[in-house]
């Protein structure tokens, strides 16, 4: 039974954590669609080619749009360059961080590591801390008290969710966090998922990030110009909207405390530009079920297993329209969620996941 009688406690060291461990929700066995080993081996194969191509395009577009910002600074012509640069820096870095963190983007390990560190810096994410938090997210996806990456908690804070599109809240959290970590202090929650032997690495990484920010501020002062800050750091504010638009849809409004990604994760069909920025993470159920499959093989995986998955949302707009009433219901009744319907060809959900008492939501 997944009903939570008490208010959710999203702390990673609190009551929900204790309950998740006691009930076996933590580190549980998750549902997987059956895929023959031969097909899965083929899908998991790594290759440097697609990621090198995409990374060259990505870096060239970043350098090109940065050059446009510098060239047109002071005129309105700078706006489209800011728009492109901001999204490349503040949004597409998230998918690069993600795929390279999994080590699936490139076959060659050091290439994954280089892009992972660049993208982590762009996102103001401590690369050590976030590697571990993401491992936890995959172990305990949307398990309250365990998952460190639940974007919208229940009841939803809609103002906070709206502000996320501006990057302000992330910025306000990320920068002080890096400063604190650079001074050698990790929080109890961070220590709960970063192994002791890795904690000093998190401190060193935070110091490197801070050194670059200090150098950027110094160069802005020395040049008497905003341009260094517009190029380094501030895109985390003005370019983050695409990351939030796509990323929020991964799990928002769906079930929590279940061990079937078909219930708590969403696949959304997206346009090719968003898929390039997002590196195919719109196939998110597929990614969570089989994180070994590289981003470029996710469309093939989707074709192979879609008979066993809920119907994907046909567009981002459709997904947001679907989730909005659920968020409003959750304001009154936080146990309310959107149950994903399975096609007749799918294996059913485990029965107990259907048994959440929704009567209060209908009142």
């Amino acid at each position: 039974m997944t009903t939570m009688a008490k208010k959710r406690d999203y702390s990673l060291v609190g009551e929900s954590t204790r309950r998740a461990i006691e009930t076996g929700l933590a580190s549980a066995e998750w549902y997987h669609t059956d895929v023959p080993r031969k097909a899965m081996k083929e899908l998991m194969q790594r290759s440097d080619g697609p990621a090198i191509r995409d990374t060259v395009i990505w870096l060239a577009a970043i350098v090109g749009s940065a050059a446009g910002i510098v060239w047109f600074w002071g005129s309105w012509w700078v706006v489209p360059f800011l728009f492109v640069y901001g999204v490349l820096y503040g949004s597409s870095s998230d998918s690069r961080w993600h795929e390279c963190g999994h080590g699936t983007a490139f076959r060659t390990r050091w290439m994954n590591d280089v892009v992972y560190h660049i993208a982590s810096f762009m996102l103001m994410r401590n690369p050590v801390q976030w590697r571990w938090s993401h491992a936890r997210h995959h172990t305990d996806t949307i398990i309250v008290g365990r998952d460190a990456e639940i974007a919208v908690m229940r009841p939803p804070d809609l103002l906070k969710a709206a502000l996320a599109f501006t990057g302000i809240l992330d910025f306000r959290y990320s920068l002080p966090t890096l400063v604190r970590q650079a001074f050698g202090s990790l929080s109890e929650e961070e220590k709960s998922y970063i192994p002791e032997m890795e904690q000093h690495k998190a401190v060193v990484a935070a110091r490197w990030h801070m050194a670059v920010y200090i150098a950027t501020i110094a160069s802005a002062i020395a040049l008497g110009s905003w341009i260094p800050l517009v190029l380094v750091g501030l895109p985390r504010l003005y370019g983050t909207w695409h990351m939030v638009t796509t990323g929020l849809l991964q799990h928002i409004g769906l079930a929590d405390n279940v061990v079937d990604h078909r219930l708590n994760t969403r696949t959304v069909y997206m346009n090719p530009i968003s898929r390039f920025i997002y590196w195919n993470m719109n196939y998110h159920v597929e990614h969570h079920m089989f994180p070994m499959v590289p981003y470029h093989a996710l469309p093939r995986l989707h074709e192979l297993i879609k008979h066993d998955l809920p119907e994907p949302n046909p567009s981002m707009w459709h997904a947001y329209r679907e989730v909005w009433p659920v968020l409003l219901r959750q304001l009154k009744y936080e146990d309310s969620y959107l149950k994903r319907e399975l096609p007749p060809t799918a294996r059913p959900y485990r029965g107990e996941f259907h048994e959440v008492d929704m009567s209060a939501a209908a009142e």
Partner: protein
Amino acid sequence: MADWVEACAVDDVEEEDVIRFDHGGRTFAVYRSPDDEFFATDGYCTHEKAHLADGLVMDDIIECPKHNGRFNYKTGAAKGAPVCVNLVTYPVKIEAGKVMIQI
């Protein structure tokens, strides 16, 4: 004294692949390298309880299917986060077309 146990036939494992072998309430992973050598390790990842046999073999590396943690399956060495603890490895020999591991 450790015993030699028949894990599988040589042909049961494809080149550059891994299979699961359960014995005595324990689980093991049996690997066939690209240069046609056989190796054996504990079957579960040392990070979390995931069967390595569902993972991907690339050259000397086995990558865990759950969090992409990597080990050198020949030595058991953990190759970086999120795996920090080495895998236990077991001696392997081939006898009459069978893969034997010493448990």
